[in-house]
């Protein structure tokens, strides 16, 4: 993992964090806990055979989605890759629709058509949930292009993993973002591994990954993802630069995933030592650190923190029950949500054959 070399600063004193009321701080902590409890429930039922496909867990990275999305204004938008559960809950999607999506049920956020990697909530500014590494980066650029085109003072936060930084689509996006002055903030969530390959075996770079922005004449910064205050303070600067000056930024947030690339990643304990994981848990886990911090601030007590934890566990358990009891899609459902025109039965949809089932 790359670390910010600067001495530890107290980001709780940055204006954007000073503006946080105790209630908002507790909300932020609660969101991080809810993400973790949701995913732990997902893991349990994935292992029990209730879900298909992949399960890419966000556990350990909660401060990134919850911290950055806590800065959202009315015209800000969000898009990420396949490790999307934390972002989905952070924008305000509920556990039921997310869990049901993974269970492949009609009540899922994508009606069971997308699965774990493809959560969407456009009404909350969340545009997925995308499965192809870096494939979402031009889309994030385009959302921000749309905001600028429509004259809105907003930005798009476009998340990607450190494994995505060597894809061509990402570099094309960086160039276009700087060239066209697009209000996008690219957020590299650097968990140190692109699937099973460590950063030093996958990327050539000077300094850190974000420094590649210099080649595109773009601002960049590195953030310690263990500290949600730092995540907020530095991301806020980038978002304001995008909103006010239409200038993009490349952020790199150092973080860590406890689990493998996906739960199908059987090798994840081979390329990392138990000591590495244990050290992270004790000294860097964003939830543990924020909990201690808020207790020290007098915002939180052990009792309240435990209650939040318990409530999140219960909410997650209830979402499992909801998902389990929800109906599966029907064969007829396979053939909807393909064309806007046919779904809406417009005059155009009645001309010519759209589907070719024999």
């Amino acid at each position: 993992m790359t670390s910010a070399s600067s001495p530890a600063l107290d980001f709780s004193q940055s204006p954007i964090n000073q503006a946080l009321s105790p209630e908002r701080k507790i909300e932020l902590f609660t969101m991080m806990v809810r993400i973790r409890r949701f995913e732990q429930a997902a893991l349990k039922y994935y292992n029990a055979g209730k879900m298909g496909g992949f399960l890419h867990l966000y556990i350990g990275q909660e401060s990134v989605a919850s911290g950055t999305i806590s800065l959202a204004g009315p015209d800000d938008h969000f898009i990420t890759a396949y490790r999307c559960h934390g972002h989905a809950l952070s924008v305000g999607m509920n556990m039921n629709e997310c869990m049901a999506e993974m269970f492949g049920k009609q009540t899922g956020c994508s009606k069971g058509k997308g699965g774990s990697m493809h959560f969407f909530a456009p009404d909350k500014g969340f545009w997925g949930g995308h499965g192809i590494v870096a494939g979402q980066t031009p889309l994030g650029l385009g959302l921000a292009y749309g905001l600028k085109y429509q004259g809105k003072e907003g930005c798009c936060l476009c998340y990607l993993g450190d494994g995505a930084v060597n894809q061509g689509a990402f570099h094309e996006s960086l160039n276009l973002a700087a060239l066209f002055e697009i209000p996008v903030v690219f957020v590299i969530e650097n968990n140190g591994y692109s699937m099973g390959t460590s950063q030093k075996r996958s990327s050539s770079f000077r300094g850190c990954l974000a420094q590649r922005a210099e080649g595109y004449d773009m601002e960049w910064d590195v953030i310690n993802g263990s500290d949600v205050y730092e995540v907020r303070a530095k991301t806020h600067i980038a978002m304001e630069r995008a909103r006010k000056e239409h200038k993009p930024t490349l952020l790199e947030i150092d973080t860590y995933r406890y689990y493998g690339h996906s739960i199908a990643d059987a090798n994840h304990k081979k390329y990392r030592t138990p000591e590495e994981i244990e050290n992270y848990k004790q000294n860097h886990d964003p939830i543990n650190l924020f909990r201690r911090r808020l207790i020290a601030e007098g915002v939180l007590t052990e009792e309240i923190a435990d209650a939040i934890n318990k409530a999140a566990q219960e909410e997650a358990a209830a979402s499992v029950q909801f998902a389990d009891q929800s109906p599966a899609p029907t064969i007829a459902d396979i053939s909807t949500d393909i064309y806007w025109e046919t779904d809406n039965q417009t005059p155009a949809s009645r001309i010519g054959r759209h589907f070719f089932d024999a």
Partner: protein
Amino acid sequence: MSRILTYREALREGLDEELARDPNVVLMGEEVAQYNGAYKVTEGLWKKWGDKRVVDTPISEAGFIGMGIGASMLGVRPVMELMFWSFHSVAFDQLVNNAACVRYMSGGLCHCPIVVRGPANGGTNVGATHCHVPEGLFAAFPGLKVCAPATPADAKGLIKAAIRDNDPVYVMENTLLYGTSGEVPDPADGDFVIPLGLADLKREGSDISLIAHGRSVLHALEAANILQSQHGINAEVLDLRSIRPLDVDAILKTVKKTNRVVLVDESKPFGGVSAMVGTLIMEQAFDDLDAPVQRVCSIDAPAIYSPHIENEQLPNPRRIVEKVLSMA
């Protein structure tokens, strides 16, 4: 009253009218603005509409097409030019995984009203990498729509329909058609839009049906004239115009009328548009056929460069006439 316009001018008029109709329409692509278009389709539009509506992009197809897809999800309606459709390969993930699938994977929450347009044809001696005709390829992805106009009027009517459609529409033009001329209705006579999914009977006949799209329609019409004048065969020519949605009714109607079919398709034989149309005829009009469906496609090899021979690799009137005569 109609006027005589070139295919290029007709497309431009369609683009211009849509820019005027809807402030969300944006033209994007390599050289589309200040250079006036690599093939001059967008000539004058940047000067008229300015930087916001007509945007030069760097040579970065995955980047700017993905950007257009993202912007479309927010309500912008990008019309993106590929200098050659052959360059789809460097933007394939965006064109297929994002444009075709985002609606489905979001359970219908997103939609993607984009147009990607540009020439897709052989016959200009530019070698195999610049000669792909991917209409069949993209029509194979549910979520996408594809059309391939053959005449100036169809080019104008279809580009306007494509821009108004709320799904991704890929318009396959042809560099060898840009300079061809034909009648196009006068804008003063009303808004001229040709719906996707509607084929056009370009020539009525009774003995055999030639079913084609794009430039192959012109070859089929020329072949029909030769067949009539030299062989007494009265061929019908059906122009598909739209590949997906596809006017299956029009296909079945002409088959039932003539009972003999030659499909003319610049695709390669394996899995092209004609392979699909042939399958539909077999499934739905088998008993109406007096002879097996035949095809004239590009000869099954990467596109040859040599100006001496390239036209023989492509469908052409001579090859169509020979194929028809072989069925007698």
